C-alpha cells in the first residue's frame, strides 16, 4: 500500500511516496512552491517514477507553508511535526532538529520516543532563512548550490552584521566593491545565518544527536558555521530536503491504519 506526503514550501515543493509505512519508493523536488505549478509537478513526477496513478495512493498528508491550499489531502499537519517524524525515521536517536526553510527557521526538541516536545521559530523577520541565501547568491552571481563549495575555499571570513536581507545585501556589495574574495564573503554570510539560527537551537536546549534538515542543510558551509556556533556535531541525512514530506507520508500511513 502506498501513502504520499507532500511538503509544499514557499520556494520549493517536495514529495515522498512510501510503501507500507516502511519503504521509501519515490521522491521528488521541484524548485517552485505554493501557488505555482510546483505541487502538481511533484505529484506527476512521483507517479511517473512508480508508474502509478492517484487511485493507487491510499492516503495523502500535506505539510509546509502551502498545506492549507492543496485540496487533495486527507490531513494537513504542520512542518514541525512532519520534520520530527521524518527525521526520527532516518535518525532514530535525533534529539535536536534544526530546519532552515525558505522563509522560516526552526529548532525542534524531540524526546526519547521521537516525539516533538517543544519548538522555537524565527521571529520578527525571515533573516537567516533560505530566501536570504538565495538573495545573496544572486548578488554574488553564483548558484546557491555552489555556496557550500565556495565557502570551503575561504581563508578569512568577513563580517556581515545586518540581519535585514536588504541591508545585508548592501554590505555584500560593499565587500565586492572592496575586492574582498567571494569565498570570504560567502563564509561571512554563512556565519551570519548560523549565528541567528543557532540562538533558536540554544533556546530550545541542544541535545545530541543534532540533525539539520531543509534545503539549506545541503549547504556544507552553513552546516560548518552552525557546528561552530553551537559546539556540536551535526548530522545531515541524505534526504535532508525531504524529511518534511517523508514525515507527511509516514503520517499518511498512520491515517491509513485508523
Amino acid at each position, binding site marked *: 500500500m502506498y501513502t504520499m506526503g507532500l511538503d509544499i514550501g514557499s520556494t520549493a515543493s517536495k514529495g515522498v511516496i512510501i510503501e507500507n509505512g516502511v519503504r521509501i519508493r519515490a521522491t521528488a523536488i521541484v524548485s517552485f512552491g505554493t501557488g505555482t505549478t510546483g505541487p502538481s509537478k511533484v505529484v506527476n513526477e512521483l507517479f511517473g517514477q512508480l508508474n502509478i496513478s492517484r487511485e493507487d495512493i491510499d492516503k495523502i498528508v500535506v505539510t509546509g*507553508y502551502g498545506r*492549507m491550499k492543496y485540496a487533495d489531502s486527507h490531513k*494537513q*499537519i*504542520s*512542518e*514541525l*511535526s512532519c520534520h520530527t517524524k521524518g527525521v526520527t525515521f532516518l535518525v532514530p536517536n535525533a534529539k535536536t532538529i534544526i530546519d532552515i526553510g525558505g522563509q*522560516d527557521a526552526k529548532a525542534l526538541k524531540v524526546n526519547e520516543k521521537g*516525539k*516533538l*516536545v*517543544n*519548538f*522555537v*521559530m524565527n*521571529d*520578527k523577520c525571515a533573516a537567516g532563512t533560505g530566501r536570504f541565501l538565495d538573495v545573496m547568491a544572486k548578488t554574488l552571481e553564483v548558484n546557491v548550490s555552489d555556496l557550500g563549495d565556495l565557502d570551503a575555499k575561504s581563508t578569512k571570513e568577513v563580517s556581515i552584521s545586518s540581519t535585514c536581507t536588504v541591508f545585508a545585501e548592501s554590505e555584500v556589495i560593499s565587500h565586492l566593491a572592496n575586492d574582498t574574495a567571494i569565498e570570504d564573503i560567502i563564509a561571512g554570510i554563512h556565519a551570519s545565518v548560523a549565528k541567528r539560527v543557532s540562538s533558536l537551537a540554544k*533556546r530550545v536546549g541542544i541535545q545530541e544527536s543534532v540533525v539539520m534538515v531543509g534545503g539549506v542543510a545541503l549547504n556544507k558551509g552553513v552546516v560548518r558555521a552552525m557546528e561552530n556556533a553551537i559546539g556540536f556535531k551535526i548530522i545531515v541525512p541524505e534526504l535532508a530536503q525531504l524529511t518534511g514530506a517523508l514525515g507527511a507520508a509516514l503520517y499518511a500511513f498512520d491515517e491509513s491504519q485508523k
Partner: protein
Amino acid sequence: MGSKSGSKELIGNLLAEQYQKAFEAKAKGEPIGWSTSVFPQELPESFGLRICYPENQAAGIAAKKESLKLCNIAEDKGYSIDLCSYARTNFGFIENGGCESLNMPRPDFLLCCNNICNQVVKWYENISKELNIPLIMIDTTFNNEYEVSQARIDYIKGQFEEAIKQLEIISGKKFDPKKFEAVMKISSKNGKLWKYSMSLPSAKPSPMNGFDLFNYMAVIVCARGKKETTNAFEILIKELEERIKNEETTFRGEEKYRIMMEGIPCWPYIGYKMKTLAKYGVNMTGSVYPDAWALEYEVNDLDGMAKAYSSMFNNVNLDRMSEYRIDSLKLGKCDGAFYHMNRSCKLMSLIQYEMQRKVYEATGLPYAGFDGDQADPRCFTEAQFETRIQGLVEVMEEKKELSRKVMYKT
C-alpha cells in the same frame, strides 16, 4: 436581562455610554481627562470628572481596521515606527482631528500611571506639550524586588495627595473624602466581580469563548468606579454560572485544547485569530488580565491602594511576572501557553523568552510564540501564526495522547 446576550449587550451599551457622556460633558464645558488604563481612577471619579481611555479607543479603532491610517499620519508627522502602535494611533487621531470608527472628545487634562508601561510617560508628556494641558503623573517605579517596599508605597501615596490638589484645581471642586470612600467601595467591589467572573471560564468546558474577556475588559477599564458596572458584572456572573450548570458555551465548536494567551490581541486580525483558534478547537481559558483590574485594598487604606496599583503584572519582577502566568495556566486548566511577541509592548514582550522558560520549568506545559502587534497590522503574518498554533496543538495532542495511554495502562 437574563438572556444569553444580556450581559454582552449591557456591557456594550455601558461602554458606548461612557464615550457619549464624555461628549456631553465636553459640550457643557466640563473638563475631560484622558487616562492610562490602570490609573487610580478612584481619584478623578470622586471629583465626578469624565475620563476617556486612549488605549481602549486605539484597540477599538484597530479592531475596525483604521489604526494603520492613523499610525501612518503619526509617522508622517515624524513619530518613530518603533513607538507603541496605540501611541501612534492616538497621535494620528489627534493630528487628524478625529477618526471614522471611534471618536472621543479632546482632553483638558491627562492622567498617566506607568504601572502598565513606561512608554506611556513620554506618550502623555507629548500630548501635554502638544495640547498645552496639565498632566497628572503617578510614577509607580518598577518593582525589581519581589514585594512593594514601604518606601515605594510612601512615594506613591505622596503622589496621590499631590494628584488630589491638582484635581481640585482642574475640577474647581474641593476633595470630598466621603465621595472618595464611596468610589473606593464601588471600585473594589467591581474589581472583585471582574476577577470572579473571569475565573468562571476555568470550568470544563469553559462557558465562554476566551476572547469575550476583552469585550468585558473594556468596561472594567473605562467604568470601574461606576455603579452600573456592578450590575453588568452581576448579570454576567449569573449567565456564566447558568451556562456552567447547563454545560453551555459561547465557544464555537468543541473545546479540545485550553491555552493561556499572553499579551494584548492583534486587534486588526482578531476575527482571523478567533476563527483559526476555533478551527483547531483551541479556547483561551487562561489569562493574566483578570488580575489587572482586581485591585485589592480595604476602603480608606491608601497604603493598600498604592501597593495594589504598584503590583500590576507588568510592574513586578521576573519571578512574580512568571508566577502570574503559572497561576493563570493552573487556574485555566490549560494544556499549553501561546505568547504574543507584541512589537508595541517592549517590556512585556522582550522579557518573554526568559519568562517562557521559567513558566515551562514550573508547569511542564508546552508553549509557542508568534509575532504581532496590538494595532499595527504590518507586524503580523497569518500563515506564520497558523503554523505556530498548529505546531502547539500537535505537541499538546501528543501530551494528551501520552496521558491517555498512561491512564489506560493503570
